[in-house]
């Protein structure tokens, strides 16, 4: 079953035309990678799905329902989670509060906190500390934990490995692979080997358009088709 459909989305920042007719779909249970150079519209695609930057033309459908023009919290309420670029954790909230705030009103916050600390044990000792005091890697763990406790059907993950040490990247990849067992993922990632390792399928974006797509298993990171669009 198709969970997410983006159809001919045209998205602008002011008068800058960023997405020039992006179309993609994600089936339930899939991990789909969105790759491409900096500034080609990957993050904007995720923002368009969440209606943070709604498309001026085209549509976004989630579980068959047209969510174009809805408010972001209404899209999120339908089961779409976001792990944004640069983490964007709440630095003035404690680590535990960062998890609790992501739990829906009718959810069990205590159980969610236990789950999060079970998945990322390193965070437990910092539970009561301001999240702003965490290292970059710990903040990424917290951002993942926050995204995972929301009971989302689709997680939009933006550059999860950006700026992290290789050892941390490995742990982030493991956490995402675990999450993928019961959540559908749309992952924006510059690290092509990581993206292809995680994903079932991929889309390549260039100049605001999807220019390539395929199965991750049938493609390698040095595939000439991909390198053409990913090299600066």
């Amino acid at each position: 079953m198709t969970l997410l459909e983006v159809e001919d989305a045209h998205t602008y920042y002011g008068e800058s035309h960023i997405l020039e007719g992006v179309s993609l779909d994600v089936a339930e249970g899939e991990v789909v990678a969105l790759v491409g150079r900096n500034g080609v519209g990957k993050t904007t695609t995720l923002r368009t799905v969440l209606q943070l930057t709604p498309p001026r033309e085209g549509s976004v459908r989630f579980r068959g329902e047209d969510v174009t023009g809805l408010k972001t919290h209404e899209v999120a309420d339908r089961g779409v989670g976001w792990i944004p670029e640069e983490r964007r954790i709440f630095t003035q909230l404690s680590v535990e509060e960062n998890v609790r705030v992501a739990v829906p009103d009718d959810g069990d916050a205590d159980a969610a906190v236990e789950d999060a600390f079970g998945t990322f044990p390193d965070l437990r000792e910092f539970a009561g500390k301001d999240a702003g005091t965490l290292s970059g890697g710990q903040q990424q763990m917290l951002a993942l934990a926050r995204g995972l406790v929301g009971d989302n059907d689709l997680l939009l993950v933006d550059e999860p490995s950006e700026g992290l040490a290789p050892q941390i990247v490995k742990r982030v990849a493991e956490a995402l692979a675990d999450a993928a067992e019961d959540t559908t993922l749309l992952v924006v990632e510059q690290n092509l080997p990581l993206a292809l390792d995680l994903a079932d399928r991929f889309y390549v974006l260039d100049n605001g358009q999807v220019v390539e797509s395929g199965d991750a298993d049938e493609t390698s990171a040095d595939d000439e088709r991909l390198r053409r669009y990913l090299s600066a």
Partner: protein
Amino acid sequence: MMSIVLAGFVDALGQFLRPENLAAVLVDGLAKAGLYVMIASGLTLIFGLMGVLNFAHGSMTMIGAYLGGLVMVTLVGSATGAGARIVFFFVALAASFALLAGLGGIVEIGLVRRLYDRPPLYQILLTFGLTLILDELIRIVVLFYGMQPTSDWVAAQGTKPYFLEQSVDLGLVSVPGLDLFEIGFGVLTVATLWAFLTRTRYGMIIRAGSEDAEMTEALGIDVRRVFTVVFALGAGVAGAAGTLLMWESTWGASVPLAADALLPAFVVVIIGGLGTFRGTVVAAVIVGMTDAVMTWWFVNEIRFAGLPEMTIFLLLVVMLVLRPQGLFGVEEVGGH
């Protein structure tokens, strides 16, 4: 000549340092701090969490004073006992809080919300215009009912229970009952707001929304509604502060109370650091104590009644020059 002045100063200092005078100044300062923290809390909540500088804050305090007074004058008769007057005061307080919170909610939804995407100057101009309208409306109403709008509403001040008009002997010093009430009320206000912001889920959401509204929205939380609640809460606290001021002989319910309350509220939030609740509490104590010390000196020794108020603004100027972000201020505050 110089030696005479110096001798006079040493004599005055000796008087000031007498334990009974120091104790009196301390209690007076804490009572003033209680009032200042009440007045400034709503302003700092709205600015700290939403980034909106609400110039109508003083008008909301003034309306709270009139509403509180109206409830008290209506309910209290000459035969009403002290206990009943305290109960009625809390009824008045709840009514002021509720009505001003409602007004705040309407203002946020109907007016302020439309300007979130504009520079802060637009919000300042809007709320400044609102304060002119509210002040004029209240002036018309109180004139219509034959009340003098520019002097304190004496009937409202007369509704306080007898024990708040008497002094309480605390050993070293005899303290006005109203001062103790104001200190207690200031502590209660701070504790309640602090507990709300740090111990409740809604408080947690408010803090998250003030730091990163977009991220909070993406967690499925309606941030616009959160901002409405914050604006309503800030306006409600302003109204509650006004109800407390209704009993104060130096403040009282009057139209000029809008400006009289707004200015020290700004002084407190700027000294504390725009948008920090902790800074507001600390600054209220500093400003209250400064006010009390200067009042003692200018009433008992130098005899210039207008100067204590001026020293508060001098404190503001010094802070702006030495530490523009205030005691606990940060570079950026909440927004949308």
